[in-house]
């Protein structure tokens, strides 16, 4: 690890100022950033910790929307969202191990937008709004491909507002080594339609499976997916599975998510 300065602001405003500085980078749970720094693959000169900002932590529910502060650890979401949005709580409870869940945060996860991360599927499938230090960004606009988001230089996520679906489920198929999602599917049913978001499968990061959404809007059953094919041309092939295998998982897991959502 290279040398760096560490600051821990207590408000969003102060954090925004600090993150405007040269070589500054946001640090949330550190579960992604610290290993990268240890391997000398990242060398920020100033780390701006976001975990001391009270307004960025915790859950609140209002008017059918669950808002999660960006600096809220996965373990807190797993415990506190269990009643209002059980699928989200289950997703958070299935990330990594207890150490990761007690440090890692939703803001860090979606800002990083790892193509195998779990949260992006929930955010996209729920049609959530990503609230940043500057603006509100619809999930459909936020994720812009592997490790890439709509965030601009110095901009950071402050919270995520999830419309609470009628029914939802996340089914994750673990990559055997990392236990990230080899493929994961989040299905959310709202009064106005169904959204299906897939993580882990595509070279372009998390994406919505439009054909499944249309089919499930007509009939919210696993059977409704029967005739659908999944195009594997842009899917990931790696040590753990081919594109065709991932395409298969997309379909199988979507069906299982629909069944689990009930």
């Amino acid at each position, binding site marked *: 690890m290279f040398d760096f300065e560490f600051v821990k602001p207590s408000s969003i405003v102060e954090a925004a100022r600090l993150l405007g500085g040269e070589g500054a980078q946001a640090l949330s749970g550190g579960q992604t950033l610290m290993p990268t720094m240890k391997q000398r693959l990242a060398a920020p000169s100033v780390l701006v910790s976001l975990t001391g900002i009270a307004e960025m932590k915790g859950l609140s529910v209002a008017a059918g929307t669950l808002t999660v502060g960006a600096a809220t650890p996965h373990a807190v979401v797993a415990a506190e969202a269990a009643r209002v949005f059980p699928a989200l709580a289950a997703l958070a409870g299935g990330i990594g191990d207890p150490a990761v869940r007690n440090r890692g945060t939703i803001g860090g996860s979606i800002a990083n937008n790892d193509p195998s991360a779990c949260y992006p599927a929930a955010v996209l499938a729920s049609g959530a709004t990503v609230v940043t230090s500057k603006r509100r960004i619809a999930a459909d606009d936020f994720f812009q491909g592997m490790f890439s988001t709509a965030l601009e230089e110095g901009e950071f996520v402050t919270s995520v507002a999830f419309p609470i679906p009628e029914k939802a489920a996340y089914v994750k198929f673990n990559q*055997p080594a990392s236990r990230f999602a080899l493929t994961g599917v989040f299905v959310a049913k709202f009064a106005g339609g169904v959204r299906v978001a897939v993580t882990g499968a595509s070279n372009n990061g998390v994406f919505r499976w439009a054909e499944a959404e249309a089919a499930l809007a007509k009939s919210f059953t696993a059977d409704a997916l029967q005739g659908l094919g999944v195009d594997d041309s842009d899917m990931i092939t790696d040590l753990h599975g081919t594109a*065709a295998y991932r395409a298969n998982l997309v379909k199988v897991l979507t069906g299982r998510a629909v069944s689990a959502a009930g």
Partner: protein
Amino acid sequence: MPKDYGIGASSKRREDVRFLTGRGVYTDDMALHGQTYAVFVRSTVAHGRIRSVGTEAASKMPGVLAIFTGEDFKDVGGNPAGWLINSRDGTPMHEPKRPVLAHGKVRHVGDAYAAVIAETYQQAKDAAQQISDDTDIEELPAIVDMRAALADSSNRVHDEIPDNQCYDWGWIEDNRAAVDAAFKSAPHVTTLELVNNRLVPNAMEPRASIGEYFPGTGDYKLTTTSQNPHLTRLLVAAFVLGIPENKLTVVAPDVGGGFGSKIYHYGEEALVLAAAKKLARPVRWTAERSESFLSDAHGRDHVTKIELACDKEGNFLAFRTETMANVGAYLSNFATVTPTFLHGTLMAGPYKVPHVYVNVKTVFTNTAPVDAYRGAGRPEATYSLERVIDKMCRELGLDPFEVRRKNFLTTDMFPYTTPVGLVYDTGNYHATLDKAMEMADVAGFAKRRADSAARGKLRGMGLSTWIEACGIAPSNLVGILGARVGLYDAATVRVNATGNISVMVGAHSHGQGHETVFAQIAAEKLGIPESSVEIVHGDTSKIPFGMGSYGSRSLAVCGVAMTKAIDKIVAKGKKIAAHMLEAAEGDITFEDGKFSVAGTDKAKTFGEIAFSAYVPHNYPLETLEPGLEETAFYDPANFTYPAGAYICEVEVDEGTGKVDVVAFHCADDFGNVMNPMIVEGQVHGGVGQGIGQALLESTTYDENGQLLTGSYMDYAMPRAGDVPFYNVDYSCQTACTHNVLGVKGCGEAGAIGSPPAVVNAVLDALHSGGHKIAHIDMPVSPGRVWQAING
């Protein structure tokens, strides 16, 4: 009543108190006055010619004390192969020099070609990066695939070895014609090509070494993560650096797992010693996890064709094996024996098969060195045999249980000389198979399969009946076979004046529990509490010259040495007692910690005898030396031959290809069992590693020789959730006939016996679902299973 003390008791592991409370003292825990830090500069390319190593700028960086390159070691010795193997045609194997630091060429990603010593770790890291940036290496095409390596002599890992072949070994060459003839006339032949996947050992504690030099005396000390400190001393002293053995102490303190990878001497150990001498300051190094992936000796890596000849009833007529074994870029110390004498000699299994022939070509590639890893050769043998037998059963529509049963050696056949040169002393393979079938409720399988089907899963059952040769090894025999060392072991029993004892053993515990088990045996033999026995190991300045721990040898070799030393103690104690009790030596008996005159109530306790040996006021000084300390060396007469039957049940999810191991039953014959709890623990760990190999662990190099699975993000280790609750039994005991403890060794069994049971179970499940798949290579990952199902 289970025993609560001594031999056969499940005494709690005394060492766990310090391990589980964070009070173990590992190499990296030691802080030394004036210490400095070594960081190695490792090749980022698999194969390259070193044009220049850029040390200039790095040498001026803050805190840098010294920089070493291959040039500094070109005149010292190489790290030798421990075993010289001849090819079929009688020519000796190729043994390329393995230098302390790469010189001239780098031969695998992670091959260290320079080292920096600095005041702090970060300074050493910075300078190492600088050297890496400033070094000029001409990249050469990487040799990764064994077949290509053998075929293309224009591209060589070692310039002097044209076909990249270390040797082409045949076992037993004289039998080859008869084996070929048996295949020609056989009613049925089953052929299977398979890969025994390369594994990264992944000991919890990475390798670490500290070198010290004491200018006042000229003594050196190496503290290191070793399974065998005396062997390391011998190699560093006599072969590599030329330090006189008497001026070098090697200490292997608490060591957090080895699985074979810490048997061997590595260049880092020689480097920290040489650097300590140069700086007259302690020099320390601890591997980062990524260095462990790149530079620890890996395991397995065979590409094999196995053939089985039999009649239509499944009676075995012959086995024939052709294997390519990858040794990586250099010969690690046991690399040449693992695919030969630890593999080929096991290719008869526990079966009465008249003809067996094994051919092994060992190949250099631009990958990390490969050497013995838990089981070492025997898992490869067992996997080939048990997989091809299973395939044959399916081809002929035979019951795999019955086929094993009819081919097993029977108890009246021991001692039995196999067609591959081993002499099995004892065993009862029918008993362990019967036991395993009872434990597994084989009769109830159909119902369990139906239950799984109701949950949408395919259920399969797989069998493996394994045997191995351990308790390594008779020195005269291994000498004939090419070993450069003997494989005896030694123990010193020192009775202290107050009657408690210190036992210095040549075996080394790196998690196994020697401190507990050896104390149990000593306590029982001497009739004293276990708490009065201290086991000392791992320090060449304290222990007798022993050969360390690997090959499930600790108890069967070193434990027997200790027992013999105790016998000498008792014999001397009798002499002392005879004097004190004014009786004839022949009338003294020793029982329950007391020396008594037979038929009288005259007796002296063990403690009284000990005291008198050290305070010899009333003592036969004219005829007997004072003191009570004895050493015994023991060289085993034969290998020991544990064997057993493993039955695995899996569920397969056809939609995702995921395999869940839902039950695992082990019926093992380890001979006499000293501590059942520890035996169970060894089996659990071994089977866990076997399940890891079967389902999860893949060491993958790309065509450029880059390790794609160089971290836990891509290298899948088994975790608690991947393994079932094991059902372990060791009640079928045929005591080893040639050691006084009657023990056989249990450390590797689980890793040897389990992989074929798992893979056989997966294929059974798939066949039950109509998927006629002959074979899937390990690791049987979800992606591979799905691919096999969906063509």
